[in-house]
């Protein structure tokens, strides 16, 4: 079996960060905030967060904040709850949550909750359980969960539960591993996991493992490294991770590495990108691969960062 070429991935991520002006970077310009979260989290998991200039990044992040309190994908871009969470998560990585006007960010996120408990992503109003998770995760990190109606939020998420035990984006929406991660994560953070049929969902999730050892997101879809996170994370949160073949999954993730240029792709032999690099490394973290820091499944941040948020400074 191959091994994790961690240093190559670090070099890859740093090179992507530097490549601000090429065509692909410009295309992805609007989601730079998400890219920052994926890249910097991966660096931290590989123990190399200190290779970047945190002051530079923190100052850029704050320039992305809109007057509404939300954050855009880049400077001058419209705010969205997804970029807002990424901004908060990156600040947490650098232990710089104190630069935030907590009331302002909280106000923006809480304002996106609707009457039925669901959350929209921005002022356009599109509702999706992804945004429920994002809002809950964000407000929890800021220790302001009391700013939303948690009971209604949970009720809405539960209404998106399907017959197969999974969850979709809205009531009746097809069960999808990404949506399941969001719903399970949200229920975990709010102490509401008892709403889940863990045995039924656990089976649906472990059936995502295909012959190659990789995981897909729905029946009859191709495996993708990002599901190493969404599926495995969900299984861990419901205590059923032993229902998949972990060794085979590790092998699959390692096969998705570009061992020459660094970076991880969605499946073997495809082109690498920062998104899949993060989820591949995060998946290996969940699988306790040596040399990778532990990651918290619900908050998708390194465990030491989460401990620092909730339990204050400690010696780790």
């Amino acid at each position, binding site marked *: 079996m191959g091994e994790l070429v961690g240093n190559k991935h670090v070099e890859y991520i740093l090179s992507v960060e530097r490549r601000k002006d090429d065509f692909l970077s410009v295309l992805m310009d609007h989601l730079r905030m998400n890219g920052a979260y994926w890249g910097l989290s991966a660096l931290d998991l590989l123990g190399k967060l200190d290779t970047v200039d945190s002051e530079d990044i923190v100052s850029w992040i704050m320039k992305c904040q809109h007057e509404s309190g939300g954050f855009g994908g880049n400077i001058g871009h419209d705010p969205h709850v997804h970029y807002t969470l990424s901004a908060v998560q990156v600040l947490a990585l650098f232990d710089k949550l104190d630069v935030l006007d907590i009331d302002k960010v909280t106000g923006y996120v809480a304002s996106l909750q609707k009457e039925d408990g669901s959350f929209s992503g921005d002022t356009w109003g599109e509702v999706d359980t992804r945004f429920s998770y994002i809002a809950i995760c964000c407000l929890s990190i800021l220790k302001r969960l009391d700013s939303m109606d948690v009971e209604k939020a949970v009720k809405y998420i539960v209404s998106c539960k399907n017959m197969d035990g999974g969850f979709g984006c809205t009531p009746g929406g097809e069960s*999808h591993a990404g949506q399941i991660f969001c719903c399970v994560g949200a229920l975990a953070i709010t102490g509401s996991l008892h709403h889940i049929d863990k045995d039924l969902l656990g089976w649906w999730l472990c059936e995502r493992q295909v012959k190659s050892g990789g995981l897909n997101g729905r029946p009859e879809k191709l495996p993708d490294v990002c599901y190493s996170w969404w599926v495995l994370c969900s299984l861990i949160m419901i205590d059923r991770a032993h229902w998949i073949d972990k060794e085979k999954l590790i092998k699959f993730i390692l096969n998705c590495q570009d061992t020459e240029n660094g970076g991880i792709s969605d499946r073997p032999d495809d082109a690498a990108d920062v998104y899949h690099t993060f989820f591949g490394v995060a998946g290996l973290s969940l699988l306790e691969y040596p040399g990778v820091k532990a990651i918290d499944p619900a908050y998708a941040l390194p465990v030491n960062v989460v401990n620092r948020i909730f339990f204050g400074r400690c010696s780790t």
Partner: protein
Amino acid sequence: MDGRRIVKVRRLHHRRWVAEKLGPDAASRELEFTRKIFFLDAKNYHAWSHRQWVLQALGGWEDELDYCAQLLEEDVFNNSAWNQRYFVITKSPFLGGLKAMRDSEVDYAIEAIDANPENESPWRYLWLNDSRVHSACLRVLKAKRNFKFALSTLLDLLGLGFKPNQEIKDAITSLRTSDSGEAGSDSDLANSICSILAREDPMRANYWTWRSSKLPQAAEV
């Protein structure tokens, strides 16, 4: 990839905003729009989400079940289309709901199972308490190919108190192998099923082993 996905979603959402302003007349146009996406990518998650929104907000349910059938004819493994079928039969104002549709839907799912017993979607679509399901399981077992979901369904049925006939018992027995040590020593049918499944589906061996630990004890009445 993720960047493309986000751009598509923003456009979809803008369409909703416009469609809402135009009212029910926009329904057929929006449904046609998602149809075009499905022509290229029949499982596009955001397009399905948009289509469900259109049906509920603007209407157009009349042809939806037929459309699902068409997509499943093109690809019976399309899990999104199976999900949409369930969505339609439970929410369409024209079909009478789950109770009215249950019978024909069981037939529909079993037809799909007979054609491709390895297809996960129709198995998850079934309502178990139906003799047609028992017969379908038996047919799959007898063919001795792709019988994983047939076995797991029988396991579920046993858990619900189902009493299999001799034919089913024999079919299960014939799938056991003497070298795995189950034959003769293990008369418990459900345990046999779990052993076979752990052998046939080794990636999920821990799951099938757990299932056997969850079986009702033989002594229970």
